[in-house]
C-alpha cells in the first residue's frame, strides 16, 4: 500500500499554535516569580542586629540634608516618630535630654524621622518638646521601607562601623534606658 494514501497524510491535523502556549507558560512563570519575590520581601523581618544599617539621606525640616553614611565613625541613634503617636511623646523628652548629654562628645549623632506625619504637626511636636537634634520627614516613606519598620516609635542605634547594634520597637521609658543602649557602643 502506498504510504501517501494514508488518511493522516491526506488529512493532516491542524498545526497547533505552539508559540502561543509557550508564551502563555512563560508569562505564567514570570508572574509566579514576581509574586514569589514580592511575598519573600513582605515576609522579611526587620534589619538584623550586626548587619550594615541601610544608608539613607534625610532632607530635614530646615531644608538641609544629612546622610547616614557621612556619620560613619559615630554612634548614630535613628528614631522614627510621629506627632499623632502618643507613645512617641512618652520618650520625646528623654531622647532630647540624652541628645543634650551626648552632643558635647561629638561622637554621637541623633536623627529623628517623622513617619507619615504632616509638616505643621511635626513642627508643632518638635517645638512642644524643644527637640534640637536633626529631624526630617520620611519622604515617600522610603527610609521606613528600607528599615522595614512596623510602626512608631522605633529606634535603631548604629555602631561606629555602620552596623546595626540595637533596635527598640517601643518607647524608651527613661533616660537611663537610652544611656544603657548607647554607652556600651562608646567604649573603645
Amino acid at each position, binding site marked *: 500500500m502506498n504510504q501517501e*494514501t494514508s488518511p493522516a497524510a*491526506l488529512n493532516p491535523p491542524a498545526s497547533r499554535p505552539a508559540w502561543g502556549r509557550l508564551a*502563555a507558560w512563560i*508569562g505564567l512563570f514570570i508572574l509566579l516569580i514576581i509574586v514569589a519575590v514580592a511575598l519573600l520581601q513582605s515576609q522579611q523581618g526587620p534589619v538584623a542586629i550586626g548587619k550594615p544599617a541601610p544608608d539613607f539621606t534625610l532632607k530635614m525640616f530646615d531644608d538641609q540634608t544629612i546622610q547616614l553614611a557621612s556619620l560613619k565613625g559615630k554612634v548614630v541613634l535613628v528614631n522614627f516618630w510621629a506627632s*499623632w503617636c502618643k507613645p512617641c511623646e512618652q520618650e520625646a523628652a528623654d531622647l532630647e535630654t540624652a541628645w543634650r548629654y551626648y552632643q558635647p562628645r561629638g561622637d554621637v549623632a541623633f536623627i529623628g524621622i517623622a513617619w*507619615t506625619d504632616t509638616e505643621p504637626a511635626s513642627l508643632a511636636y518638635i517645638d512642644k518638646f524643644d527637640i534640637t537634634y536633626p529631624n526630617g520627614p520620611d519622604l515617600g516613606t522610603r527610609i521606613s*521601607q528600607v528599615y522595614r519598620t512596623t510602626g512608631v516609635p522605633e529606634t535603631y542605634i548604629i555602631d561606629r562601623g555602620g552596623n546595626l547594634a540595637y533596635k527598640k520597637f517601643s518607647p524608651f521609658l527613661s533616660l537611663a534606658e537610652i544611656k544603657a543602649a548607647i554607652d556600651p557602643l562608646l567604649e573603645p
Partner: protein
Amino acid sequence: MAIDHHPPTINDPKRFFKDNVKQAVQIIKPSTGLLIAWIGLFVFILLWGSTPGKAQQPTPGGITDDQVNAIARQMYCPVCENTPLDVCPTQACAQWRELIREKLAAGWSEDQIKTYFVEQYGERVLATPPARGLNSLVYLVPPVAILAGVYVLYRALRSGKRPAQTAAPTPDKTETVPDEYMMRMEEELRKRN
C-alpha cells in the same frame, strides 16, 4: 366550676356602650402613647436629618467636608491599612484630611494635592495605583487572564463536541461531491479487485 359560654346579654345598651368604650380607651391608651412616641421620634429624625449637619457646613476656609472627602476617599494612609482616608478615625488621618483642607483653601487642584501626598508618603497612599512598573500588572493580568480563560473554555467546548461528531457521523444526503479521500479509497479498492 361552671363556665358560662353564653355571650353577655345587653340589658342596658347605653350602660354597656359606656362601660365598653371606657375599657377600650383604657386598653388603647398605652398603645396610643407609644404611637405618639414613635411619631415624635420619626418627626425628630426627619427634622434632624433635614437640617444641614456639621459635615456639610463650610469651615472658615470655605472648604466643606464633602470637598475634602472627595479627595480623601481616593487615598489610604499607611497607618490604617484598608481604611479609606475619608472614614479613617485615627488622629493621623484627621491630620491628613486637615492638610487636604488647607491645600484646597490655598487653591491647589485635586491632582496637585494627590501628587503632594505621593511625594510625601509614597504611591501606596493612592487608592488606585498608577499603571507604571510592576503596578501595571494589576491592570494587565486580570483582562489577560479572563481572555485566556475564555479561549481555554472555547477550546474545551470545541474538543468536547468533536468526539460526538466522529462517533456517530451523520451522512449528509445533500452532499453530492465525494471528498478526495473517499475517491482515492475507492480507486485503491478498484485496483485491488
